[in-house]
């Protein structure tokens, strides 16, 4: 094997590492005959890197040459770094060989922009096309669509890829214009629109003709950088909410800003990436997608930012003590979901089991409800316990944010220790 491959892989993987998306879920594609690959609904993570992120797809760039000069990106044209490019056949071979060894679930291909958007996109589509048509590969393919790509190429990409994505990068257009002078929302939203139209068209066609080709069956995703601009959480979450209203949009990813170009004064200097804030945003995102929360319940004009020391669900509960206690034997599923300490799984267990008889707090504990949190917000026809009404919200907040004291290790070295009250 060519030893250049090793260098190329290192450089181009390094270049792609800030893309958050690694999901391989959303499509099921069985292997129709004797060829390679299948896609299962949930997706599989094959490894985890030392930063705790999963490696499901071979996340890589076709090239790290780029004509754009975006302030947040390590591959911007003004950076003096090694540039290299994969040939289509090299990348296809690498994907297939990794796949055969069960290293990966598929390919996530992105690229720097060479010459223009269409030229770049065409070469990315060629990789996907080769995999699907020449190698009969049925694994997962995620293609990044380059801002400003034409409709024809998006349509072709959708035929081979499971998911397409187009990164919105910044939570507001002003911030994007500031840091990425070559991009604007128009250039991001247009391909997004094409993907959405293709997705809907594909669904419509399959209703009429059973064998009509599927168009990007896993929909599209996008990503924005958190903490690189002055935008508040309300701005961010309203934007994601608006994006989730679009039919093909499956995921919005948040990426805590990591300064890669420290010399650029347009971006803030941070000591550490805003990991807690990123986590809270994901929690809020989950509340919108799985817990029936509306965006203005999580953040609004009175509370434009998420609290960092408690999660958004607890935060909502403390702001709305009037909604509690929830009687777990009679309340609606939606209301049970809102109890801090009860997740989707336990909520479902509760509503199915209570048909058989009264549930007690003992049952809840066994089902996996975090009673430490939930006890302030529920009642289950038992003796009265102190709920949030009796204790007050401040007490609950303190009780749940207190850092548990670490137990001191008992050391017994057979020596009597007498405390003379001397400091030390």
């Amino acid at each position, binding site marked *: *094997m060519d030893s250049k*491959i*090793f260098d190329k*892989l*290192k*450089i181009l*993987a*390094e270049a*792609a*590492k*800030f893309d958050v998306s690694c999901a391989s879920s959303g499509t099921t594609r*069985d*292997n129709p*005959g*004797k*060829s*390679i*690959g*299948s896609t*299962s609904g949930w997706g*599989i*993570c*094959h*490894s*985890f*890197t*030392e*930063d*705790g*992120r*999963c*490696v499901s797809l*071979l*996340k890589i760039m076709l090239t790290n040459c780029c004509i754009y000069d975006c302030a947040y990106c390590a591959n911007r044209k003004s950076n003096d770094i090694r540039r290299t490019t994969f040939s289509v056949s090299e990348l296809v071979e*690498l994907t297939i*060989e*990794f796949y*055969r*060894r*069960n*290293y990966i679930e598929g390919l996530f291909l992105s690229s720097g922009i060479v010459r223009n958007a269409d030229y770049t996109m065409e070469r990315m589509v060629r990789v996907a096309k080769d995999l699907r048509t020449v190698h009969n590969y049925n694994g997962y393919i995620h293609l990044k669509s380059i801002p400003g790509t034409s409709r024809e190429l998006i349509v072709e990409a959708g035929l081979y890829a499971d998911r397409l994505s187009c990164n919105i990068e910044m939570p507001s257009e002003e911030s994007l214009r500031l840091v990425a002078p070559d991009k604007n929302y128009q250039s991001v939203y247009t391909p997004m629109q094409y993907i959405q139209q293709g997705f809907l068209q594909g669904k419509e066609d399959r209703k009429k003709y059973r064998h009509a080709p599927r168009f990007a069956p896993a929909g599209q995703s996008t990503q924005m950088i958190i903490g690189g601009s002055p935008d508040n959480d309300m701005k961010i979450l309203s934007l994601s909410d608006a994006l989730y209203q679009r039919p093909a949009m499956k995921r919005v990813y948040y990426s*805590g800003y*990591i300064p890669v170009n420290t010399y650029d004064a347009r971006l803030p200097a941070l000591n*550490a*990436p805003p*990991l807690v804030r990123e986590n809270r945003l994901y929690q809020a995102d989950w509340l919108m997608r799985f817990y029936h929360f509306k965006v203005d319940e999580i953040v609004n004009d009175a509370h434009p930012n998420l609290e960092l020391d408690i999660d958004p669900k607890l935060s909502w509960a403390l702001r709305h003590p009037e909604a509690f206690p929830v009687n777990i034997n009679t309340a609606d599923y939606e209301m049970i979901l809102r109890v801090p300490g009860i997740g989707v799984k336990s909520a479902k*267990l509760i509503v*199915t*089991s*209570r*048909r*058989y*008889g009264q*549930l007690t707090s003992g*049952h809840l504990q*066994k*089902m996996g409800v975090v009673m430490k949190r939930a006890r302030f917000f529920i009642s289950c026809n038992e003796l009265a316990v102190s709920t949030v009404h009796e204790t007050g919200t401040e007490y609950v907040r303190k009780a749940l944010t207190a850092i548990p004291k670490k137990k001191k290790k008992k050391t017994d070295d057979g020596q009597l220790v007498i405390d003379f009250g001397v400091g030390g």
Partner: protein
Amino acid sequence: MLYFIYDNTFEGLLTCVFDAFYRREFPQKIVGKDIVVPLFTESFEVITDEVKSERVLAALRKKISPSALRMLFVDYLSEIEGIEIVIFHYIQKAVTAKQSIELNFADADVLELSKVYKKVAREEERVRQFVRFQKTADDIYFAVIEPIHNVLLLTADFFKNRYADQQWIVYDTRRKYGLFYNLNTVETVCFDNLDISPSGNINPEKLAESELAFRDLWKDYLKAITIRERINLKLQRQFMPVRFWKYLTEKN
């Protein structure tokens, strides 16, 4: 105390149920043949009988859904100590109850079995995640793994479907058997003396030509994709338990 002794097969376990109802004697514990029964306990050795186990299955099919039946089998595969008696109680309750008990998670046995089911399913998924094939000189993709539950059989269809055009072996070193796909069907195989290093590697001479290069490429890739500003080793271990690292290409 009454112990039932069975031969560690699922049919044996079902025969236990039949015999218990037939003899009107219900065990406190059901143990495998290899377990030594404590002193002063009564024991009864159940002889596996397909006719009896089929009758229990038929009775169960009338009472519970196919997915609940599958759950019982998966629970049996967990090989957790004492799981037999929980399955026994579940079946006992299921066949005597007027309505299906399978969604009554307030019942301790139902909840326990559904929890064990999740554990086994999780382990099955981990096998799918962490199996790493090495290509041998005779074009067989070979992998070893050491799951805590006996889940290899559950993964057979998945691997068969995914790697339909390559011959592969997934070998369980804890239970000393494996699955072999010969491009048509999946068979179980046992090797008496398996020639692998402690970290699961095959003798390099027997490997395909470019195998070692791809292994290095994979290791390099994982290093390059790591964001050093976000190192979080605890999170890594949480998702990828250390007990699987022994055979992971990237970790040895």
